[in-house]
């Protein structure tokens, strides 16, 4: 039993560890994926089990345009990160702005879709979260995804503001990369939601 504490010092070669931000974001993505899986399971489990209308086939239109917008925003955010890495500020701002714009179009599309579904004067029975099991699972799954889009857009807008005011430089590449990982995740989830809700569920 030693009286004074001593710290071991061994000879160690080169020592490199993974980035904290990337590992942390990967963990968050795993946890979020678990939440989404449960909502997807609930959606699939309740497909066709609604006791009353309207059914998905009657009211859902496939949102092709907005989906293309959201998926392309993965490409633009990738270019934003690589421009920042190269230190080209103007290009970073441009790509970030484009990402926010594309994400915004997607969100507006979801908003308009919901408005039409809820609106009783739109030529079909209105669909709300209380109407039937389809409404319950549809609004919660798409809404959960949309709330992730909103969070992503807020963070991307912040990054855009920092970029425009010149506070973003190549030192921040890793941070923007972590944010882009989140955004890629949100886009990937949309592919699943799209397939489940608009392809298989319809």
């Amino acid at each position, binding site marked *: 039993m030693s009286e004074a504490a001593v710290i071991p010092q061994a000879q160690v070669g080169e020592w490199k560890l993974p980035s904290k931000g990337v590992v942390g974001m990967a963990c968050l993505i795993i946890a979020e994926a*678990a939440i989404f899986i449960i909502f997807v399971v609930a959606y699939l489990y309740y497909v066709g089990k609604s006791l009353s209308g309207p059914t998905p086939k009657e009211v859902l239109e496939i949102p092709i345009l907005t989906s293309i917008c959201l998926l392309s925003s993965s490409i633009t955010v990738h270019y934003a990160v690589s421009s920042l890495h190269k230190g080209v500020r103007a290009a970073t701002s441009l790509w970030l702005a484009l990402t926010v714009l594309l994400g915004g179009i997607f969100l507006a599309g979801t908003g308009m879709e919901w408005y039409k579904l809820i609106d009783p004067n739109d030529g079909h029975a209105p669909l709300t979260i209380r109407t039937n099991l389809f409404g319950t699972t549809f609004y*919660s799954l798409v809404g959960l995804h949309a709330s992730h889009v909103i969070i992503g857009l807020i963070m991307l807008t912040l990054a855009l503001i920092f970029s425009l005011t010149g506070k973003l430089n190549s030192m921040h590449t890793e941070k923007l990369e972590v944010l882009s990982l989140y955004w890629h995740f949100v886009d990937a989830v949309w592919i699943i939601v799209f397939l489940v809700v608009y392809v298989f569920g319809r």
Partner: protein
Amino acid sequence: MATQTPVPAAVDQTTETAPRRLVFEVLQDWISTTDHKKIGMLYIGYSLIFLVIAGFEAMLMRIQLAFPNNHAVSPQAFNRLFTMHGTTMVFFVGMPILFGFGNYLVPLMIGARDMAFPRLNAFSFWISAFGGLLLYFSYIGGDGMYGAGSAPDVGWWAYAPLTAHAFSPGHSTDYWTLAVFLSGIGSVGTALNIVTTIISMRCPGMKMNRMPLLVWLYLSMSLLTFVAVGPLTAAQIMLMLDRYLGSHFFDAQAGGSAVLWMHFFWIFGHPEVYVLVMPAFGFASEIIPVFSRKAIFGYTAMVAASIGICFVSLSVWAHHMFTVGLGPAGNAFFTLSTMAIGVPTGIKIFNWLATIWGGKVHFTTAMLFAVAFLFQFMLAGLTGIMLSVAPLDWQLGGSYFVVAHFHFVLVGAILFMLFAAFYYWYPKMTGRLLSEKIGKWHFWIFLIGFHLCFDLMHIPGMLGMPRRIYTYEADRGWFLLNFLVSTGAGIQTIGTLIFVFNMVWSYFKGEVAGPDPWDAWTLEWATASPPPAYNFATTPSVASRRPLWDLKHPEDTDGQYE
């Protein structure tokens, strides 16, 4: 061979008689802290308060059940008691106290100065803490507009459709779901922090296969937390939508399914047991080798078994639902998968036994608790195997046999190992040893109380006594057993009070520990006790699994054998 030039751990120049700080300064220091050691101790202190509250609730239930036709508490109050006891013990005692130890120990053991995200760490603690406060605020606020209910009374599983507005008016169930939701956010935050710390903050030389087993088990436990707590969070969101917005997830009248809630809850619920027990495995894997004076037996097998448990535990949840009626395929699958999880846990038991075998065993209080843990965990596993057999489960499901089984795991394994951890690491946290003499009293009294209580509790279950029953008729033949079980609960309470006394007494009068009172081998013993805020004056670097062994025995270092 690695040459070693050890350096002194601390260069803290604070004088011993630093002026006393104002109460407000101390308070501000603790509330605004982002130091992993302080947050760890906040977690532990907060859980101990809830442990006392939930233990008190258990005592009230045992008083009610000690005699037939008893009316010590009202039936309504009884329903609230078992709901609050279960919810508190799982979410506001078990999870936070284990995260507390993880917070404290993991950075020290891997030679880091703090967690990867210190502010997220503080956030996770405070959000869990407010979850607990919210749960207990329901005693005041749960009344709602209907004058119905106070604290939640839906059981800790909160099965649908009991949680629907029609059956649970007022706000009590809302408090339950919000409290559990907040605790889930805190748990995921801390788990994320622990994983990132372990992956990205290890000191030079600390390869993955050189990490202490406790660190490996916290890594497995945190990864399991992501996939286990996610479903619970999702299910709570659905329940909130049902209650607030009138959706129909668990509303059978609109075609919703109550069984779906059971699936979602137990996809969380069963891995949760392993989330709680894996840190206990971690404590055992540190304490048993040190007091057997041997390196752990089968390090690689231990790591593989931990990872194996992670995967297998995700496929066993429906053994909680045999009585629902799963059909032959479901029954067969979940029976087999549940039996399969006995394999990696069995490997662990054998490895601990092999570590003790032939060792020079020191029966300190920590080691006594660890040995009791080995026996009790094995017994708990055996009744678990019994319950995994679907036909037997149809007989025993929902009876006191099940209650006895899982309390054998939660108390006999986890709480015993937590006590061991307190005796082992208390000197590191406070600088003073817990009294061994009082500790021996604590151990033997608690052991007798535990076995009187939970061994005998199996029998009324086999005689058909259902769990959650408010009272029973005198002619059932359950009186004597229940009376003895309640006596055992009382004895455990006395044991716990002795432990609390020991903690307080030793804080002021205990023997001064020094940096390394147990002649141990992992890095947390290479700092002063308690460690300075920066943990290590210089970053340590290691060449084996037992860096302090190498330091003390330069002629026979571990690196040659690994």
